[in-house]
């Protein structure tokens, strides 16, 4: 590790902290109290959208209505994407002729299972990609089928979080907001203005934005090189801000076109965390005690910094197996270009790669600027654990906050009993139904990750099976032994967590993995989001209980520590056995000098 590296990390944290409050205030205005300065300009468009969509945005919904609207919208938009992907060969804006007879030889076919996986994955804000963008997707598919979800899945997540915040903020009420209003206002007043300037910024740094066919270059040595083109920057902006992570190109944010410079990298990292960080302030603001929001942010920051420190430390320590081959890996000599550079870009180095890997998995982003599969075992453990904890450390747009609030509810329930009262959180008593919903939330994630990983690590299929051409499902790994297991575990953790990053060695574009991973994304999104909205419904009806000195204060350091402990213990206890057989054992093996 280097001072220069830590300086970049510290700057990042500082800028994020400074932006939290204004962002939170702005979200509060847009989503709840009104008064966004953009309202005069965009108001007519907002009303036009409601009219065209035929919705009454002023009608408040009960939690059931909210959840139904969200589900219906997600289902329809998922079908829409599936249809577009399957039909891309017949649709315009396809200069490379993907899914047509004139497709290049290196193109990937858009099969039914791949289209299902992709549609599910983008609808759920996961953006797991079993395909490579530059070899599969027409420009229309990228923009209309995929980028649509980059916008609306983020806005829907924000809506669900707002519903839960309203559950805490309102009392003796029965409605939690209007789904379409939340969806449209988030897209229009929050995502759109930021993405507008963000796109321009990215292009200024070197990202591409055009509709040209791929460029064929003749290199200095006379070889042919294909350079991909397309409307990339506009999609990159929402991919990061919406914490989606589905890259326009296969290498994602490691690709020089998606992430051309260290500055673009800094802004991309910032844009992952900015909305979830702001939402913690919004939460505090709306429950009329901003300290509550800061406490959540403090817990997030502590977990995040711990992750960065571990990941950076192990990446900087590097791979001793490489050192044995006479390779200089010491950061003392090479700075942040030493350590483990496999899968990393020189312009980012170790610190920015470790930071990005931690951020993208703390949040449910899944964009990567280095290949996670090639991280050191312990360095790779960090993203894996981050995802398995439920991506509540900042997390997705909305999904991070509602996940964190679910854990706050659990923490208050376990610890609150110890002060001798029925547990309360921000003035709401935590009772049977709330605990039930919180447990359902936690259970859904563990179930999907563990069971599907278990299935995939032992399922025997004949070689060439149409379900999975490589045969047994554990043949799809790119690395043998413990690391192979990590690849499978990571894939289901990532899809269940709606992250989308990968230990990308796994060959996942087979019917078996496309379907199981697609299912995991749906479970991870909806079986977790619906309990969160139900929790909102249960909370919103409750009376407000004023805090007294007998109430466990949830804004102090003690709560922060407890919250972290509950998150770590619940997460670690669930996944520790699996992690032992993956990264942990690999760490020891690496230091024993074992190769597989």
């Amino acid at each position, binding site marked *: 590790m280097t001072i220069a590296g830590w300086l970049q990390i510290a700057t990042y944290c500082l800028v994020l902290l400074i932006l939290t409050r204004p962002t939170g205030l702005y979200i509060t205005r847009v989503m709840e109290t009104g008064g966004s300065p953009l309202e005069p300009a965009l108001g007519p468009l907002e009303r036009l*959208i409601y009219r065209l*969509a*035929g919705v009454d945005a002023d009608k408040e919904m009960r939690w059931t209505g909210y959840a139904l609207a969200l589900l*219906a*919208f997600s289902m*329809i938009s998922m079908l829409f994407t599936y249809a577009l992907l399957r039909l891309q060969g017949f649709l315009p804006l396809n200069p490379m002729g993907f899914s047509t007879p004139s497709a290049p030889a290196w193109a990937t076919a858009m099969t039914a299972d791949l289209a299902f996986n992709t549609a599910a994955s983008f609808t759920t804000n996961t953006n797991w990609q079993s395909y490579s963008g530059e070899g599969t997707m027409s420009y229309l598919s990228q923009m*209309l089928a995929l*980028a649509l979800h980059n916008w609306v899945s983020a806005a829907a997540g924000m809506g669900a979080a707002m519903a839960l915040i309203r559950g805490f903020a309102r009392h003796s009420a029965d409605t939690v907001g209007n789904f379409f209003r939340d*969806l449209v206002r988030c897209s229009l007043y929050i995502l759109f203005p930021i*993405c507008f300037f963000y796109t*321009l910024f990215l*292009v200024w740094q*070197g990202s591409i*934005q*055009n509709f040209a066919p*791929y460029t064929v*270059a*003749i290199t*200095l040595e006379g*070889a042919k*090189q294909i*350079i991909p083109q397309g409307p990339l*920057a*506009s999609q990159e902006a*929402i991919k990061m801000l919406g914490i989606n992570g589905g890259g326009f190109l*296969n*290498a994602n944010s*490691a*690709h020089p*076109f998606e992430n051309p*410079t*260290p500055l673009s990298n800094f802004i991309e990292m910032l844009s992952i965390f900015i909305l979830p960080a702001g939402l913690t302030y919004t939460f505090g603001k709306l429950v009329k005690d901003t300290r509550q929001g800061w406490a959540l942010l403090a817990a997030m920051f502590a977990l995040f910094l711990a992750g960065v420190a571990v990941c950076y430390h192990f990446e900087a320590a590097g791979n001793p*197996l490489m050192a044995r081959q*006479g*390779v*200089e*890996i010491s950061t003392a000599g*090479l700075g942040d*270009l030493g350590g*483990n*550079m496999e*899968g*990393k870009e*020189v*312009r980012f180095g170790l610190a*920015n790669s470790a930071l990005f890997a931690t951020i993208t998995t703390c949040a449910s982003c899944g964009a990567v600027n*280095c*290949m996670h*599969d*090639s991280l050191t075992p312990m360095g790779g453990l960090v993203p894996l654990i981050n995802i398995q904890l439920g991506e509540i450390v900042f997390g997705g747009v909305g999904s991070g906050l509602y996940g964190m609030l679910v854990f706050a509810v659990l923490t208050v329930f376990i610890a609150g009993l110890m002060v001798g009262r029925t547990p309360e959180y921000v003035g709401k008593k935590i009772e049977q139904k709330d605990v039930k919903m919180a447990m359902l939330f936690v259970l859904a994630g563990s179930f999907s990750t563990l069971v599907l990983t278990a299935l995939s690590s032992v399922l025997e299929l004949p070689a060439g099976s149409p379900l999975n051409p490589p045969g047994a499902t554990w043949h799809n790994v*790119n*690395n*043998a032994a413990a*690391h192979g297991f990590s690849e499978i575990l990571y894939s289901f953790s990532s899809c269940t967590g709606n992250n989308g990053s990968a230990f*990308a*060695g796994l060959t996942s574009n087979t019917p078996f993995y496309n379907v199981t991973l697609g299912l995991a994304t749906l479970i991870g999104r909806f079986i977790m989001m619906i309990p969160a909205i139900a929790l909102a419904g249960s909370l919103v009806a409750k009376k407000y209980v004023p805090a007294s000195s007998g109430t466990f204060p949830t804004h102090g350091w003690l709560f922060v520590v407890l919250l972290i402990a509950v998150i770590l213990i619940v997460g670690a206890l669930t996944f520790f056995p699996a992690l032992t057989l993956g990264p942990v054992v*690999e760490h020891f093996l*690496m230091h024993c000098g074992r*190769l*597989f």
Partner: protein
Amino acid sequence: MLEQLIPALRATVVLGVLTGLVFPLLMTALCQLLLPYEANGSLVRHKDGHIIGSTLIGQQFASPQYFHGRPSAAGSGYSGEASAGSNLGPTSARLIVGQQDNPTTAGVDESFAGVKQLADAYRKENLLSAQDRVPVDAVTRSGSGLDPHISPENAMLQARRVASARALPLREVAALVEQHTQGRQLGFLGEPRVNVLELNLALDEIKR
């Protein structure tokens, strides 16, 4: 149910058009107007007009008179249509000691250069001794497979070879490397690095 589905469908179409068509078209128009060079891929043209490549995208260099980029896992090496890393884990034998071609499978080349082979080759072409340690970026594949940069240490170690291949004084080549070493952006972001294509273009300039 229908009362839920119809607004959902209408909203999908309306928002799809706005976010999926209007927004990218609007942004493309603006970018083409304001930043056409960047928006089209920062392409470098040869004086005869053909496109050499993009300053942002690394390309394969094998001949001794050019600086070499990092090993690449993109396709056959720096294939722009197949950006990718190696996705090999730290205990992978392929990654560390490489893999030989299997002679029984004709037509398929399984050979893969591991860190060991890459380091040996690097030492050999740059006339280093067996004890000399090779900078790690020279033997590892980047995440994109299209990394346009190498570390300044890596560049300096190659300078001697390039100088002798081009019959240029080492000092001049080394000065060129230094000249093309980009510092940290805004003074603190990222790592000092050398853009290989730009450096090689500059070398070709000297030749004339």
